[in-house]
């Protein structure tokens, strides 16, 4: 597999653009009546992309730091006049998110076979386009390129919701598009301000620039971050904040989400939950935090407060939803609150948990939407009240739904717990008050998911329309089982995930708080050595060795 360690093979570009090529192939060479071929090609293209992306993890060096932090790098001039480069490279965080994207992309396409019966050609073409947009966003390390992918991503999703969605699809699609777009515009302004500050110094807020060569190179901005005056950082951070917080979505910018999720077709919901909701959090980690450490520190409290409100408020609203998809959508608000809380704990635990929880949420919530889609296809209703007692009729479906719900509510042994626990550990290390409020979300999480489960699967099977439902077929089982396997894997042995994200997370922590590890020098608690075993208190020197 020399292509992965051969610098002349642009492997990231290949993975990014394979779906686009597949989409173009379908557009030009497959007639729209030939639905079977379209489905087959789309699935094969997505499968190839997924298979190609797996060795990335094998060839990725998790110990890479400094210049080796971002790997598989490809870079060449694109628009030299304004310093735009085509730069692709990934660190451990992007790597995991790309794997999540290629996996859920494949599942989303495969799960749509029987759900989508109209305009199949356009549908699969758009799904593939979306795939390219998402992977590109995670790969891009040039602001210009990043912004292009960031916006490209929106368009297919807009059409997916608007054409194949539910009854209020137009409203939901437009709301989704405009809401996220308005955030992006503010982010763009921040990017432009950075650009001018770095280069010729068009003064903004009366601050003169640095006079470097104009560039959109993200890594260069990581390095000049500390030179940006705090006032400017504050405003730039706000710009990024609106762009990313809407995308996350954080309270109070979340109301596009329930509409978009509810109206989107199943595959749209799955991708929305699994990948698109990670864009905001990814943006914070990749751009806002390392480039604007001062801005980050100035805004810790407001962001944390919004995150905690999101966790608790989101869970409260979730409890009384009557529509399954809306319920899961609101639960995402609560879960993403955890992600943001962990991130802004700004210590390794919080950030590792935050990144892992992005993956976990993608898997668990993606699976939940997939499962709801399966029952929706049979009964064409999302109303909880229409169901009841399904465990009798569909035991396998009920079991898999339960495992997924348990993973989502953070049962130890499954993935959700690892993420939530690590996040809360990080938050608690900053402030027990944060952890205390956020942990309420865990109690409420159990309440809304088990109540949902009870109303749908337990109780008497008294609705005649449900009495002849079929259990999962093989295709449905195939879409859901990989996700279940991931839940168990991450729940029991998350070590390899933690290893992969360790260095990138440390990088961000030290960008924001260069003194974090320096506190090692601080004196250890006074130990009255009566009979404490030697192993209990490692000497400071050993501990420093353990750190790096």
């Amino acid at each position: 597999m020399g292509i992965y360690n051969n610098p002349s093979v642009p492997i990231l570009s290949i993975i990014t653009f394979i779906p686009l090529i597949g989409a173009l192939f379908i557009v030009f060479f497959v007639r729209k009546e030939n639905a079977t071929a379209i489905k087959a090609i789309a699935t094969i293209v997505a499968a190839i992309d997924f298979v190609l992306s797996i060795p990335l993890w094998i060839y990725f060096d998790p110990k890479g730091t400094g210049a080796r932090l971002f790997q598989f790098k490809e870079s060449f001039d694109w628009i030299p006049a304004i310093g735009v480069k085509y730069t692709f490279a990934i660190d451990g965080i992007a790597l995991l998110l790309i794997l999540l994207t290629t996996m859920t992309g494949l599942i989303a396409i495969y799960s749509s076979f029987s759900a989508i019966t109209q305009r199949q050609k356009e549908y699969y073409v758009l799904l593939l386009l979306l795939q390219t947009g998402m992977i590109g966003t995670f790969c891009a390390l040039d602001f210009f390129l990043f912004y292009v992918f960031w916006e490209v991503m929106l368009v297919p999703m807009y059409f997916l919701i608007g054409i194949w969605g539910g009854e209020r699809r137009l409203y939901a699609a437009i709301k989704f598009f405009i809401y996220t777009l308005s955030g992006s515009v503010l982010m763009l302004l921040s990017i432009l301000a950075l650009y001018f500050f770095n280069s010729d110094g068009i003064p903004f807020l009366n601050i003169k620039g640095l006079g470097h060569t104009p560039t959109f190179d993200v890594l260069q901005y990581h390095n000049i971050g500390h030179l940006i005056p705090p006032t400017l950082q504050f405003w730039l951070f706000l710009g990024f904040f609106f762009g990313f917080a809407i995308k996350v979505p954080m309270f109070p910018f979340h109301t596009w989400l329930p509409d978009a999720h509810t109206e989107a077709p199943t595959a749209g919901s799955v991708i929305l939950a699994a990948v698109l909701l990670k864009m905001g959090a990814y943006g914070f980690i990749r751009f806002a935090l390392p480039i604007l450490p001062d801005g980050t520190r100035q805004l810790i409290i407001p962001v944390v407060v919004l995150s905690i409100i999101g966790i608790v408020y989101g869970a409260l609203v979730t409890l009384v939803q009557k529509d399954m998809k809306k319920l899961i959508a609101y639960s995402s608000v609560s879960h993403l609150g955890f992600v943001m809380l962990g991130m802004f704990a700004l210590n390794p635990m919080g950030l590792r948990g935050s990144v892992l929880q992005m993956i976990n949420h993608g898997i668990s919530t993606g699976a939940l939407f997939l499962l709801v889609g399966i029952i929706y296809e049979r009964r064409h209703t999302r109303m909880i009240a229409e169901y009841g007692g399904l465990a009798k009729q569909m035991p396998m479906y009920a079991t898999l739904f339960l495992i997924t719900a348990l993973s989502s509510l953070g049962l130890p042994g499954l993935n959700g717990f690892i993420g939530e626990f690590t996040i809360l550990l990080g938050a608690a290390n900053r402030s027990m008050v944060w952890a205390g409020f956020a942990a309420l979300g865990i109690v409420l999480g159990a309440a809304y998911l088990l109540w949902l489960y009870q109303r749908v699967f337990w109780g008497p099977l008294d609705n005649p329309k449900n009495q002849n439902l079929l259990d999962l077929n093989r295709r449905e089982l195939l879409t859901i089982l990989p996700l279940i396997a991931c839940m168990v894997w991450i729940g029991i042995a998350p070590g390899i995930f933690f290893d992969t994200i360790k260095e990138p997370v440390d990088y961000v922590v030290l960008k924001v708080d260069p003194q974090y590890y320096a506190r090692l020098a601080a004196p250890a608690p006074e130990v009255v050595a009566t009979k404490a075993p030697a192993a209990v208190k490692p000497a400071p020197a050993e501990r420093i060795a353990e750190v790096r």
Partner: protein
Amino acid sequence: MSPTLLLLIPLLPALGALINGTRAFAKPLTPKNRTITNLFALGSTGLSAIIATVVVVSYMGQGTHTPYVHAFYTWISSGFGHVAGGGLANFAVDFAFRIDPLSCTMLMVVTWVGFLIHIYATGYMSHESGYTRFFAYMNLFMFMMLLLVLGGNYMVMFVGWEGVGLCSYLLIGFYYDKNFAADAGKKAFIANRIGDFGFLLGIFLIFNYFGTADYTKVFALASANPEHYAGITTAICLLLFVGACGKSAQIPLYVWLPDAMAGPTPVSALIHAATMVTAGVYMVVRSNVLYRLSPTAMLVVAIVGAATAIFAATIGVAQNDIKKVLAYSTVSQLGFMFLAAGVGAFSAAIFHLMTHAFFKACLFLGAGSVIHGCGGEQDMRKMGGLRKYMPKTHWTMLIATLAIAGTPLFAGFYSKDEILAGAFAYSPALWAVGVIAAGFTAFYMFRLYFMTFYGEYRGFEVVGIEQSEPKHGGEDLIPSSAHLDQGDAHTDKAHGHHAHGHVPHESPWSMTGVLIVLAFLALVGGYIGWPAALGGSHPTPFQRWLEPVLLALGNEPWEFHEGSATVEILLMAASVGVAALGVLLAFFFYLRDQTWSVPKRLATRFALAYRMVANKYYVDEIYDATVIGGTLLLCRMASLFDIYVVDGLVNLIRHITVFIFGHGSSQFDKYVVDGAVNGIGYTAQGGSTLLRRVQSGFVQNYALIMGGGIVLMTVVYLFTKA
């Protein structure tokens, strides 16, 4: 000691659960398939029990009982965090097991009692269509419970802790198509989660102050530097205790346990009496070094324990459902264990945990045998005279009843009196509460015994203390809370596989054999704690066995309390006297007078008190109205706020934008935008009306918002520049 062997103990039941769990979908319940289910279910738990015994025996054979800890791998490597007082520590969590006298004791109780109950269940559940599913859950429970007791740090314990909660949820909801079972399952899980909320915060505090959750390290640090950690342990211990209150059904979180009786009776015996509910006691004793550093936390534990002991005992007096009596009895006995832990009699707590596992499992399984023999009936008023029909059940139940009542020479006597002696040394007031609770215990247990086994069988006709209770027939009986259900034995109605009103019969050997083993243990199980006051050694063999778990604090080594023999004998006499009084009252109320005229008269005379007790002090109703109602109200308000305020603002902005700019840009829209759309549409071969309809109306806003944003930023820029 081989780590593989250690790992096999929990892994075997996990394997059994996995296999039977998969088989539950595929295989119809034929006799052959049932045998295969038994093979996996009993084989895995039996083998696990044997391996556990090997491990424990080889551990006991070692000269010194220092803990043996084996870390299998790093489970959660979360990174470096700040430890209070300065310094960083790696907050990593190992998947580690620990063998020490405490986990050995628990290991023996869990594996063997668990195995016995599995055997019993093959008889009891034989008519159930969900037979394989049942055993899959039971094995899963064994796995989780073994993780809980074997775990070498708070995190592995927490995995088991929540895992047993899950199994409890699944097994309570075993008859999931019955609403009362579904409600009870959910209630149990959520009440436990409230407790776990505290537990989790306690773990975070431990991390913040000790930099690890590993028992060995935490306890060694606390033991070596008592002064340094004394301040924070109160918070840590109280938070951990919240978790214990949830899991071990203490005030105020006990409400789920009585409802949990909706599960099949073997579940009640295994999970809701012998093992899972004692996890809280285990956790407190496990953390004894931390608790001993905080007298406040100890006092809280003791008071909550004593209060629960007497509170639940009084409720038990007025229940007519045989399983409900036992459920409240369990809550009360768990209160005794916490009382023991709170007053510092940690070994007494574990001792009572063990003897209680024997006699309460025996009682529950005996009750199950009675229910089984009476065709699913659970109302004691419709039983009576059963000693003629089911002699083996009768004798074993008698032994267990004597044991729980604290009769000398029976197991419960030794453990309970060790608790009461400890309580007396700590505070005579708590001792008095304990003795009174013990008196109530003797009363309600013999009430149960007499009503069930003496007199004439009343199952042929309908008799009731309050006449003609409406028959509910097992449908939707507990709308998330208890109602006035003295009359209806709803829970195992789902178990009603016999026709009603038939002649009671003795249960098969698979059930009675287990009863006999447990009754034997309930008889002799107490002798390992023979007190010094009655000629035993000080400390007792059981105390000496557990001593390695009770680390020294600073320079003060642990010492078992030794009172004067005279005082202790007097205390024993007092408690036996009170218990005898309880038995006598039960005898006169329920045996001598088969019309039960005295209790009936008392119920009328003290109608208010009776109603309070019979309705469990209306705690469920109060919770419904306050906690649950309040939360739901809050949820609805939040939901309305979300629709009308948060989203309302968004829509308001939309309307304003459309109103102000919409008209002006219509020309732009018509030519530029639609033109572009048509172009795109044709190339994609899909530029039809639908697409166009989707498209129009948004790009104008795109431009507007972009423009609006730039205007906004310009304004900000101008202002800040000036």
